[in-house]
């Protein structure tokens, strides 16, 4: 099947930059699919969209729309549309004429384009505001109108560049709901750039962009359960990293040996990744995997994050793990606790370069080098 949008081997440098903004980026978006590009600030997310839109030219690589290269095609003839972080409504036009803008460019009459625009305005639940000027709208209303205008442009692909990031939490949630409704009604192909994990979760797949490279492109649940690299795990947050070495599917460290899931194809020096919500606090005398002392208790939304300094660190340095517990769990800094690690289904490992000099790891390393010999 031909992809609606295919970015292949895109490399882009900003003038004067000492490293590429995008390095050999490949991304394929299928018709009707929504893909989120997730990454920290400065990772090249916006540049990726601007390259796709034709607002920036890459040094190498190709941009294909429905199988046809559009690298030399100007933005207005690329059959895609883009929505920026700011709504950029045209101040001299009223709401309806803003939405009708693309239709008017295509040569449709004023009344025809306004009738079509009204349908999109109704879709974003602002049917009564067609005659208002942009400056008479609230921030949320402006973004809804911008979304309606992008939809009315009827491009093959919609590129959304953090369009809801300037909105407060409530408005953002309602815009997410609106996006779901719009997808159900129109089934557009969408590339959404965001640094918000909840927003990324709206997409079928999430491409994680770090320092201009796509580290992983997968479903959001796969990212949470099986991140491919440390960078992905750190971007998602909530992972505890325990250095060690993997031998025959078993992670060895100062904490002991942990069987990894079969899907974790890692050998050698590796970080054991455990999500904080998969760890459990127990009485230190109970059958805990490890024990330690609580050094910090932080509230995080409806949960508490408990930071435990381990008695038996996995390396020859202090090690801490973060455990998520329910709000109201009686635990104080200074108290001794046990920490239970989950079974293989709750563990993951990625190749890592954090040194672990614990005797257990050294022993595993010796065994490994011996078996190689």
């Amino acid at each position, binding site marked *: 099947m031909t992809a609606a949008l295919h970015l292949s081997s895109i490399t882009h440098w900003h003038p004067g930059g000492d490293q590429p903004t995008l390095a050999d980026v490949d991304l394929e978006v299928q018709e009707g699919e929504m893909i989120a590009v997730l990454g920290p600030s400065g990772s090249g997310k916006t540049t990726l969209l601007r390259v796709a*839109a034709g607002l920036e030219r890459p040094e190498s690589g190709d941009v294909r729309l429905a199988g046809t290269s559009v690298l030399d095609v100007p933005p207005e003839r690329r059959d895609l549309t883009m929505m920026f972080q700011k709504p*950029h409504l045209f101040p001299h036009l009223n709401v309806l004429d803003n939405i009708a803008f*693309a239709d008017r460019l295509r040569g449709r009459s004023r009344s025809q384009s306004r009738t079509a625009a009204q349908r999109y305005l109704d879709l974003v639940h602002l049917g009564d505001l067609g005659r208002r000027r942009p400056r008479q709208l609230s921030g949320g209303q402006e973004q809804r109108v911008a979304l309606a205008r992008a939809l009315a442009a009827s491009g093959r692909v919609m590129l959304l560049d953090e369009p809801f990031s300037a909105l407060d939490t409530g408005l953002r949630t309602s815009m997410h709901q609106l996006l779901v409704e719009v997808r159900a009604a129109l089934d557009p192909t969408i590339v959404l750039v965001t640094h918000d994990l909840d927003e990324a979760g709206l997409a079928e797949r999430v491409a994680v962009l770090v320092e201009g490279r796509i580290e992983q492109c997968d479903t959001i649940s796969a990212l949470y359960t099986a991140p491919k690299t440390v960078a992905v795990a750190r971007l998602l947050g909530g992972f505890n990293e325990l250095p060690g070495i993997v031998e025959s599917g078993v992670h060895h460290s100062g904490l002991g040996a942990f069987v990894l899931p079969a899907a974790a194809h890692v050998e050698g020096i590796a970080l054991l990744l455990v999500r904080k919500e998969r760890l459990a606090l127990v009485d230190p005398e109970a059958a805990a995997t490890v024990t330690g002392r609580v050094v910090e208790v932080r509230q995080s939304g409806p949960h508490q994050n408990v930071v435990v300094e381990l008695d038996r660190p996995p390396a020859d340095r202090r090690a801490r793990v973060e455990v998520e517990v329910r709000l109201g769990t009686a635990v104080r800094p200074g108290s001794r606790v046990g920490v239970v690690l989950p079974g293989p289904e709750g563990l993951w490992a990625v190749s890592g370069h954090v040194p672990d000099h614990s005797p257990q790891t050294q022993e595993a390393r010796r065994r490994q080098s011996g078996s190689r010999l």
Partner: protein
Amino acid sequence: MRGWQEALDAGLPAALIRSCLLGAAVALIATPLGATAGRALGWRLLRRPALPSVVLLAPVVLAPFAVAMGLDVVILRLGIPEEIALVLVLSVFALPYTTFTMRATYLGLDPALEEQARVLGASSRQARHRVTLPAATTGLATATGLAFLVGWSDYAVTLLIGGGQIVTAPMLLGSSAAGSGNDALTATLAIAASLPPLAALAAFTYAASRRSRAARP
């Protein structure tokens, strides 16, 4: 009424028309040039904007008399007709006003508006004509008005370049005030020369206030 009769006899209607044409010609040249320069300065499209800014400001910094005298010599040598020369020189004087009015206008407009228009299907020309320029209407109207006034109200440059042959409303007023001793005529000419720009200003202010009232919820 005697003053008005004398003003009509002195050629007031022809002088008013000449001033009006001069103002319009200056506005027609200085406004688009000022809009282009203002766009480049306001949107920081130039790598080194300091030198163009100084050059564009020079006509208002230097004494108009000195500039006009210098340009007069050049014009005589080149053999350019007086009317055209006058329009060109006054356009140079109007350019700083139109440029810096448009610079302020563009500073208040986000350049990304044009990019937004492009990704909605507009060519760069359409983006400029359908989005940026209409969004800058107030600034354009102000710049046009200022350029028109430079042409309308000029005395010194018209006298130097025109050599007394191009009789505009300010020229008529100046000669009456300087030599006739006829206070009634001078007062009438002063009123006649002031009324059109005042009426234009009133109409512009009224239109702008109506527009802002209409935009209010």
